[in-house]
């Protein structure tokens, strides 16, 4: 989910990330249901794919590999991935985004360190003095986000740079670094207690996963109209992919369902004024955020759709923008559906896999019955 008002070679053969703590990654818990197993089997590879806004290729390819065999996908000129199911009106759009927050190389200094510009909104201190990956067409180049010089004792560091161990601009370029490449931090999907998990870029790989599960389980014969599933690009830097999709569809759709994070205040360090949907209690009707307000009658309808299927659904309001809001200028009603997330846009986001299952079931119910 876009943070409103945000700030924003040589491959791993020589620069190997050594996940010696990989044994901590709990593949499956003994008590996992088949639904949890299914959700994790799709989510984990998506989370461990990298796709900073504007460089979503690896994630898009991962989604394509995970589509049901019958699905025919197409990629538009913006980079969005489309799958159309069913025929007739009213057309309904379901859209989750592929991209994640990160950086782009904006300069290479004489000493070989890389200057960065942010892609999306996040707390920069969470990247300071941590491992880094520069993503190139030839593979990833490992490095480190530089710690600040001594003397700065505030929470926020000065603009971050990356050291790939080059020592000079020429050497950095020899390694394969060039301007415009994207930079992130290594990430790993890790199970926590019960059905919970942590990783980076659950926003919005959970949405992408839920759309895939819904498609796989969809009763296509039950569809009464066309449903277009879109995996969009460049959401974190201004809903750009969604804007292109909305322009292409114009006034054709009746509704759009943005499938994106419900940033939850379910944490002891958050204010409880709003956004309190707890994790593990199901998907969330994102009735009001910083980009759209869902007409109350549509929220009621969504609740009824979920209730008729016996699917858990919470209703709430949170911060951020959503892809569906780009469709509203064309008269399309935006009914965003989220899933509760702790610690959004951090390297340690936390979800409950039960909510992924709930979200997929809500999407399927919407497609088949609404």
């Amino acid at each position, binding site marked *: 989910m876009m943070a409103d008002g945000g700030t924003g070679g040589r491959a791993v053969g020589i620069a*190997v990330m050594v996940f010696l703590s990989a044994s*901590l990654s*709990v593949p499956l818990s003994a008590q996992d249901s088949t639904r949890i197993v299914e959700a994790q089997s799709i989510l984990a590879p998506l989370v461990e794919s990298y796709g900073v806004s504007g460089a979503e290729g690896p994630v898009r390819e991962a989604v394509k590999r995970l589509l049901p065999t019958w699905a025919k996908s197409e990629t538009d000129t913006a980079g969005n991935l489309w799958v159309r199911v069913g025929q007739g009106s009213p057309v309904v759009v379901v859209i989750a985004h592929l991209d994640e927050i990160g950086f782009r190389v904006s300069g290479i200094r004489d000493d070989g360190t890389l200057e960065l510009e942010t892609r999306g909104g996040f707390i920069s201190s969470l990247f300071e*003095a941590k491992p880094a990956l520069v993503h190139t067409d030839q593979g990833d180049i490992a490095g480190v986000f530089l710690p600040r010089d001594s003397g700065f*004792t505030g929470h926020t560091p000065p603009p971050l740079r990356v050291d790939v161990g080059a020592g000079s601009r020429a050497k950095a370029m020899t390694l394969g670094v060039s301007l415009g490449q994207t930079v992130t931090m290594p990430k790993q999907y890790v199970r926590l207690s019960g059905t919970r998990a942590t990783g980076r870029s659950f926003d919005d790989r959970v949405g992408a996963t839920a759309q895939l599960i819904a498609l796989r389980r969809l009763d296509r014969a039950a569809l009464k109209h066309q449903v277009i599933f879109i995996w969009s690009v460049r959401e974190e830097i201004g809903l750009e992919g969604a804007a292109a999709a909305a322009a292409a569809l114009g006034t054709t759709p009746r509704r759009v369902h943005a499938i994106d994070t419900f940033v939850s*205040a379910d944490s002891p360090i958050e204010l409880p004024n709003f956004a309190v949907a707890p994790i593990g209690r199901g998907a969330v009707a994102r009735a009001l955020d910083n980009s759209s307000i869902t007409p109350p009658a549509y929220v009621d309808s969504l609740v009824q759709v979920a209730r008729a299927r016996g699917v858990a659904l919470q209703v709430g309001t949170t911060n951020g923008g959503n892809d569906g809001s780009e469709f509203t200028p064309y008269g399309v009603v935006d009914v965003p559906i989220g899933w509760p997330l702790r*610690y*959004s846009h951090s390297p340690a986001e936390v979800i409950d896999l039960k909510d992924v299952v709930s979200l997929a079931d809500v999407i399927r119910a919407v497609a088949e019955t609404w």
Partner: protein
Amino acid sequence: MIGRERDSTGPSFRMGKTASAFLLLLSAFPPVLLSAQDGVDRLALRFASMTAVTGLEQAMVDSLRALFPGSARDQAGNVTLTLGQGSPKRLFTCPLDEVGYVVGNILPDGFLLLRRVGGGGASRTASPLFDQQLEGHRVTVFGARGAVPGVVAVRSTHLTRGRGAPGAPDPVFTVDNAYVDVGASSAAEVQGLGIAMLAPVSLAKRPQLYGERLLAAPVAGRRAACAALATAVQAKPKVKGTVMVAFTVQSLYTRNPGLASVKALLGPFDEIKTAALPARYADTAVETVALADADRLVREIVQWMEGR
């Protein structure tokens, strides 16, 4: 770099011209060099992936005992082994421990609170930004039933928007604000994971190699230095006299009681040295050592053990 100790604050020791010349000679024999390099790289990565919170180094101590079957664990927790016999009787040490955390409280809703161990006493003061490295990152809690992954809570980016006044204070994150989330919903669930008060906690260790054999990890300097010492021992040097090797505990707490214990129990020694390596970005999660320096240290230690 080897630190020579005449007393607890002895001057550091640097290689002389003779030693440097000998290193050049050594480098003329690639098979020997490659073998030692592979060994120190492998051990440095392995040690850098381990956690040994000062005073709670048991897991790493056990690993070292397994690495050196003839070694002993003294009553303070140090790992010691004896090479050679007779005089002189010398000691080579390497401190194992690191500044870290323990579980200080378990809340009814399943969150853990922490207490820092080390880095706050007379022996060593942690950077004001040391605790901030935890915020929003994965940690490992070492419970009675094994390692348990968790994360340290951070405010969601989206929920901070519009809530801070321009120019408001920007205080650093401290351990007092660290809520550890292991995915549990109750204290009973936490206990079911084997987590109790005083369980050690550290940042999840993910050593990273970059550039030309640069190793980045928390306490990479110490761990690569210990790897160099271990590699030197594995090289089976022809020791002059007796060399005691000690991987010591609690070097970062109060008055270095681990090393003091070795001296008291196994001394006196004619000479004491400590393994150390220069590091960039010290005391951060990406503290960086050049493994080429570790190669040199291995050769230097072997020479010293052999009395050359």
